[in-house]
Structures are given as C-alpha cells and as structure tokens.
C-alpha cells in the first residue's frame, strides 16, 4: 500500500493533455476523513472508508477517452441495482447522490456508496476538491551536435 505522504499524481503516468487530472492528493484524503486507503495492486485505483461508513472509490485513467469507457462499464458493474442518472455535477454522473454517486470528472472516476447515510454527493464534492491538475511535463534536454 502506498504511503499517504505521497502525492498520487507523482505516481501516475504522464499525459500531454494539460486539462486532465493527475489524481487526488493522498496527503489530503485523511483531512476529509478517508481511512484505510487501499490501492489496487495493478491499477491506479484506490478504495477507502469514511468514518461514517461510506465507501469511496477513486480511479485515475490515463486519458479522458479511457475514463469515458470506464465510466460506461462501471455504471453497470459497481452496483447490482440499476442506477438512475445522476445530478449534473461533473462530466458524467449516475446515482441519486444521496446513498450513491458515481461521477466522471475528466479522466477521473469518483464514487461514494453511503449505504447507511445520505451524503454521497457531499463526499464526492469533497473528493473533487482534492483533485490535482497534472503538471506540464518538463522539456526534454536537447541534443546538440558538438564541435
């Protein structure tokens, strides 16, 4: 499991598209009450729990296009109850926002399952506030002919 002191974006693959998110600042997640953060062993995907029992899921895709495909699939696969359209709070959303909400914001999927409460949308907004813009990649050194 990754240390929480590491900023997620530093671990992710680079992208040339400046409008994409690098991810969520892992340092900040405990500040909004996310505990037991666990990284998927093969993917840029984290799960965690909030103190009130709500579960959060954060998935960072390499591109917006891949995130769109992932959103389409996860809209079916994250719950076995058919989900209703979600509020227009991001690029895409499903779930009512009370006990469940899945959104796509650029290349990131965020979801909260608040099975015992009604604050899914609130928790998602807090997660969104922690998204970090991907920094521009430094220019590569230029090879110049010598002598």
């Amino acid at each position, binding site marked *: 499991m990754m240390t929480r002191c590491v900023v997620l974006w530093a671990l992710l693959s680079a992208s040339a598209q400046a409008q994409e998110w690098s991810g969520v600042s892992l340092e900040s997640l405990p500040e909004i009450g996310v505990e037991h953060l666990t990284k998927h062993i093969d993917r840029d*995907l984290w799960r965690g729990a909030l103190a009130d029992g709500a579960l959060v899921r954060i998935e960072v895709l390499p591109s917006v296009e891949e995130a769109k495909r992932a959103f389409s699939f996860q809209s079916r696969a994250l719950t076995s109850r058919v989900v209703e359209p979600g509020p227009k709070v991001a690029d895409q959303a499903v779930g009512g926002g009370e006990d469940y909400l899945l959104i796509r914001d650029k290349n990131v999927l965020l979801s909260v*399952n608040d099975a015992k409460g009604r604050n899914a949308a609130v928790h998602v907004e807090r997660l969104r506030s922690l998204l970090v813009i991907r920094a521009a990649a430094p220019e590569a050194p230029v090879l110049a002919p010598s002598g």
Partner: protein
Amino acid sequence: MWLWLLGCQTMGTLVPSSGPSVSDETQSQTTNGSATTTGTTAPIVPMVQVLAEVVDPLRGGMSWTVSGLTDAEGLLSIDGADGTVYSQTYTPDGTGTVDGSWDGRLADGEWAGLGLFTLRLTVNGQVASEASASMVRAGLTAAYAEDDDGLTSRRVDLYWWEDGARQSEGYPISGLEQIEDAETQTPLPFAPVSDELRVAQNIQGTQRIAYTFDSRPLLTLEVGGPEDTFFGATGLDATTLRLEADGWTVQGDALLTENGLVTLMRDAPLSLEGTVGVTEELVTLSFVYDGKKGPEVVGTQTLPLTMYRVLGAPTFGHSGERYTAWAEALNELLPFIEGTVAEHDAVANAVVDYVYYETGLEYDTRRGASAYSDYDWGWDPHVYFSDFLQRRFGTTINCTDAGNLVTTYANMMGAELRHLIILENFALDEIKAIGIDDYTSCPFGPGGCGFSYHAVTTDDGGGTIWDATLVLDGDDDPGSAPHEVMMVQAIDGEEYLNRLVRDDFAYYDYENEGTIQ
C-alpha cells in the same frame, strides 16, 4: 542381605573381589520364593551400578546404586576425561545398599562437562567395581515440515499477505536459538504454536502448516550442535542416541549426531475419515538409547503442531505468492467446516455455508454496491481480500463480494471455483439475501425488484452454481410465500436461473478466474 544379592543378580559388569558371602539357599528363596536349598554359598560382591547408561545433566544427571558394602567403607569416584570429578565415601550402615546421584557439577558449581564418565567403587584400597555412563545434552534446534511431492504427503505453503511472505520447505516451522534456557538451565521444548498468525519467516513460535487431508506429513528435525548449548558440547559423539516419536516413524537414519538431520513420517494420514479441518498434535520427540534392560529414554522435546487439512493445492487460475492459501483465511474457515468430506462439492458447499452464515456480512439493500471488489472492463473480478479479512470497509456487501469470497476461500482449499456473471436487468423471484432476515423479491425496496447483474460461482461454465449472496425459495413456487430455504450449493445452473429470475430472460456470461490482493 538378600536385597544385596537381588541387586547383584540384576546388575551388569562387576569386578570380583573377596568379601562376605551368602548361601545359595537364601538366593533361591529370593528368586523363587521357595525354601529349596542347595547347600552352596556365593560371594557378596561390592559393586556399583548406574541406573541409566546415558543421562542428561539438565534432566537429573547420573544415578547409581552401591551394594555389597557389608563391613567396609567404599569410595565411589567418578572420572571424566579430565580426571576425577566427583567422589563419595560410603560407610556400611547395615543394609549394604545405598543409592547415589550426581548432578554433573564440580565442587565449585561449574559443570563437569559431557561425554563418557567412569564410576569406580574402591573397597579396602582395591577397585571393587566399575560402571560407566555418558552425559549428553541432546536437543533439536529446528523443525521443517516437508512432503514427498504427493507420494504420501503434499504440503501447502501458507501465505501472509501483510508481510508478503510465503512459507517454504526451506524455512523451519519452529526453531530454537539454544536447546536450553541459559537462565533457568532447563531444556527447551519447541515454542507453542504462535497465536500471532503473521509470524512469516520469523521464528517467534511454531507456525501453522497445511497439508492435503490424506497426507502423512514429513518432519525433518535438526539436531543441536556444540554451538547450541551453553555446555559448548553435546556428548553425542560418546554415545548412540536415536530419535523416536509415537505415531511417527523415522525415515532413514535415526541416530542423533551433532547438527545432523532426522526425518520422521506420520504413521497415519492426517484424516483417516477423509475430511478437511484442523489437526492439533503435540509430538513428543524422544531421545532413546538401547540400555541393558532395553530401550531407555534420556529425554524428550515436544513439538506442537497445528496442521490444516485442505482438499488440495490452491486452484487459482493465476500464479504468484498471493494465489495460495492465506494463513488467516484458513484459520477462520477451517474450524467452521471441520469434518467436511474432502470432496470438491462438499468443500464448496461448506464454503458457501461459511460465507453466508458465519462472516457477519449483510447485503447492501440500498444499492447492491461492492465493498471489497472491482471488475476490470471484461467483468474479471478483483477482490481486496486482505481488507476483507480485517473488515476495513465494513460488512455491507454485494454479490460480487460474496462471489469473490466463495471463489477465494474455495480455491485456497483446493476446490476450484470461478466467478460467473448473470446478465442483465432481470426481475427476481423470492430470495433471502445474506444477513437479511426475510424473503423478498424486491431486495432494494418497492422500487427495486431486480438485479442489473448478479455474480455467482461455478466450476463448469454455469452447469453447476454456488452462491453465498442469497438463498432461494426451494419449493414449487419460488416466486411467492411460503418459502423453503434452499442454499445455493451445487445447484444445476438452469434450475438456479429458474428459481432466481421472475418471468424474465437472464443468461450466464463472463466466467473468470479473478484476482486477489
């Protein structure tokens, strides 16, 4: 006086010397209990006899009996490699027989060492009798659990996720830094089975081990050497000791030699009845020599074993350390399914019982959302099993979680199951979801009477189904009360869909092995 003679008759080596005599008439009375007389006499011979020819200074040391001292003092001395280490004068007290012992220490309290010692009884300035005994410090420093590639036993390595450590035959399951406790100066047994499951390769206690249920486990024991005892020697080179254990048979050479190895095989399979579960056994390892009166035990050392009996080697479709039997998982599962017949379907059925009844999970009746699982885009499931074992994400789950738990536990037991998806958006007959008290066809309330998908497990592409998410209504009308509890254990795949799905079309798809972490 007849007591002295009894001693003479049962004792070994003696050096004849002049002295008092007793008539054979008395001897006959002693041995036969009759009054027969012979009219002859036999000499009474002062002698010393050790009670055990091989002894351990930390298990009582040396003991002997001096007899035949009727009218003269006797000097009992014990000589080792460096000269006399002990002496004692015996004065006749009328009985002629006296017992003695020596703890192996010199007069200054230091240990006299190990090896062969000669006990010499001197009477009237002449050596009347000699005997010998060996002092040894026998102990075992490591125990390895092994197999013979399934010929008679197959060991299944356990795995500790949190440590990323997997057992192997190259590491001992128990070990000792020293064969005795230096402070109390007492021999040490192997440590108890560790209460802490996460001992991994660190020997802090004896590790649990797993074998297939019909295995006859192999144990290889490493004998302590001079470096393993504060004596700085073992004395094993001066005697012939072998290892024995009730219920186990030595394979090959049983002799205890410094830093040598002795292998034992369990005489009986772990389960004569052919069941899975847990076998607890305290193996008593005895250090034995052939004395004049037969086999004698110098000392024992115990090895506690907790042996998980599994159906077979793990049946995950993937390889790698995490696709094996997790110690923590078997530790929780096996006591619950103890005695289950070691057959695939029976074990899979027992796993469904365990997940449904014993894990404290309940279905997410709001959303049917997974807590411990994810799918990749091809419905290939991934389970956060380590998080589940600690219930880090609570106890509210969905079918993907339950399916993953069933496949994970079953595959760790050697009962192969795979994840299978049922699609899609179908209405339900009456079901009783895990952790929910009542049957319903609307698990999500009045507006939620169906599944968008459902996850189950199978070993044959959907021909046979196991499912711990729910129980079906097993009567002739699965769509309404009354209900007859029908666990989903090896149910025909077609019957399963007929009982689960209400007037709708649903189909099996996406059979996958799944991944775990």
